[in-house]
């Protein structure tokens, strides 16, 4: 904003450097992720299998089990991070996050209902799950919006977050009541989903998740300027000719859809939407055109590293990825809270 040409140049070269470094880290994490797990592969093995020289067992491990999981971890991380970035921009509150606002919980409730009503997981269900999660998350989001909105004062960040917290508690209570009705295998599925294990580790799920991101991510990048303007404040945004409430709703809908489709596949992973935007903001500043891509990369990196840890820390058993993310994310959140001015 108001920067001279030279500063702009400096900024964009810094931006490219950041993106490059993040990209390299992401590639490294992918390689490391492919190597590690119950059957450990050396770098040499990996190269051989990737070039088509692996045994049947090795091919199975790498292409059927690990690859889709790695891709899903990355996509989910990017999607949740973008969703958090949008919500923080709209709420003008640095501590907002789709998990915190009850959106994940809404999606989760639908997942439980779905498991309850359609016990058999057919191919069809994989593709309907994101839709159902979207409905649940959408209903939760609309309710939160309506409850937090007051005619004269508009949408106060404080009310938004407190309402989200209340909604989350309520939905979890409803979930507990429903969970009792499940049989043992359904119950196990739901517990694992709750803890945030990337459960749908097969190519089917990649295909189910990808179209959502392919539509939503470009839309969000396209609206980066609007997010910048919304961040400046409502009056100024009006002055600049942005129809604030309409843009806000559209962006909120995009954020909800992103979070819901990711959560449908990955289970309840929270804190990514909170932390990734913060880290990204530290790296590249406030402009959303640069911030959003950087945020997506940071989120992807975070979840993929957490997933490696989740698989390797306590072999042969496995910690749900969401737990690793929470153990890293919660202290960082507390640090932000202790630091934030108000």
């Amino acid at each position: 904003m108001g920067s001279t040409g030279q500063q702009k140049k400096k900024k964009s070269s810094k931006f490219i450097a950041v993106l490059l470094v993040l990209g390299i880290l992401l590639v490294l994490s992918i390689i490391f992720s492919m190597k590690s797990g119950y059957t450990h592969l050396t770098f040499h093995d990996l190269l051989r299998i990737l070039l088509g020289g692996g045994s049947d067992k090795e091919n199975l491990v790498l292409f059927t089990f690990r690859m889709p999981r790695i891709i899903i971890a990355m996509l989910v991380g990017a999607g949740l991070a973008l969703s958090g970035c949008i919500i923080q921009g709209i709420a003008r509150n640095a501590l907002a996050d789709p998990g915190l606002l009850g959106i994940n919980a809404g999606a989760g409730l639908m997942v439980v209902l779905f498991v309850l009503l359609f016990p058999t997981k057919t191919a069809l269900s994989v593709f309907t799950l994101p839709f159902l999660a979207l409905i649940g998350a959408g209903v939760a989001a609309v309710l939160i919006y309506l409850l937090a909105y007051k005619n004269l004062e508009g949408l106060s960040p404080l009310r938004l977050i407190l309402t989200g917290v209340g909604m989350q508690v309520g939905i979890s209570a409803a979930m507990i009541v429903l969970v009792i009705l499940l049989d043992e295998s359904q119950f196990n599925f739901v517990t694992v989903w709750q803890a945030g294990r990337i459960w749908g580790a097969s190519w089917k799920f990649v295909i189910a998740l990808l179209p959502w991101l392919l539509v939503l991510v470009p839309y969000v990048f396209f609206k980066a300027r609007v997010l910048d303007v919304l961040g400046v404040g409502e009056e100024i945004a009006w002055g600049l000719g942005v129809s604030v409430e309409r843009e806000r709703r559209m962006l909120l809908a995009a954020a909800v859809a992103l979070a819901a489709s990711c959560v449908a596949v990955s289970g309840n992973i929270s804190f990514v939407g909170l932390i990734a935007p913060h880290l990204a903001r530290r790296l590249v500043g406030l402009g959303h055109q640069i911030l959003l891509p950087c945020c997506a990369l940071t989120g992807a990196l975070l979840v993929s590293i957490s997933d490696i840890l989740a698989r390797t820390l306590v072999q042969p058993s496995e910690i749900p990825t969401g737990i690793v993310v929470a153990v890293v994310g919660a202290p960082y959140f507390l640090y932000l809270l202790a630091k934030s001015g108000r």
Partner: protein
Amino acid sequence: MKVSTNDAVRSDLFVKKTDRSWRALLVIVVGLCVLVISMAFSLTQGVVQMPLSAAWDALMHFTPGSMQHLIIQDLRLPRVLASALVGAALAVAGAVMQGITQNPMADSGLMGLNAGASFMLSLCFAFVPGLSYSYIILYSFLGASISAGMVYGISSLQRGGATPMRLVLAGIAVSALLAAIGHGIAIYFGVAQDIAFWTAGGVAGTTWQQLRILFPCIVVTLFAAILLSRSISLLSLGEEIAQGLGLRVNSVKFAAALVVLVLAGASVSVVGPVGLVGLIIPHIARYLVGVDYRWIIPSSAVLGSLLLVLADLGARMLNPLHETPIGAIIALIGVPFFLYLARKQRREA
């Protein structure tokens, strides 16, 4: 918000005193009567229904051979007593917290105390299996105090102090962290099911042995809370004013914190993390009896007991073959209330 409450407190403490006292006394007496009636009713309900006379017989003329008497004595009575005790404990813990932090959102669940206590429970289950109940209670106090320290410390680090928003956010984050670690440990050591069983059962599995430890623990602490209530009233006016009136603010705060920790820790060791009781009940009590904590605390105890006894009754009657978790029932009542409070919050409160 603060200013108007303070004015209300002042006028209430010094002007309409007698009027309020009668009203408060009425609330407590009527509350106790309803409590006794619902406890008696609760004894008769369940998978096996029986007339009130059978319950009376079981208490007064216990015959060891009778199935009915055994159900009442060994299953239902401890359960009903435990829910009454825990309800009083949670509600009073909430009231004391709201008084000393002058924060309408304070509650043992929201502030992470429950999560801390249940985190310690999972540590106990994982590392020292077969620990005796009194030690389990001790450890849950310890867990509650660790998480309370974290939440309060972190949310009051900044200049603004512990605002409702900061407390709630810090509470969520600390709860999420401790829950995640606890969950990880539980999965790794294969005790997840034991813990789920322990916490989801609510008051259902309470034994006389547990009650023997709980009862003195909670009752003594409740009396301590009532002894502290005058000081808490003064503190709720604001620290400067309380200091000006000659109150030793720090020692009162310390004593109150101790009371809260014991009450919250003991409750969690019985029912698991049940939230929102400590949030709702003191608000209702304040609405009924005014802002003097000498009345709020005893009436919170009575109303909290009543809420939990009724919720436990609901847990048994909703779906007689399964136990509905008591925490879920309370959340279904409590959440709309919480949303109402959230809506009432001013912009930067």
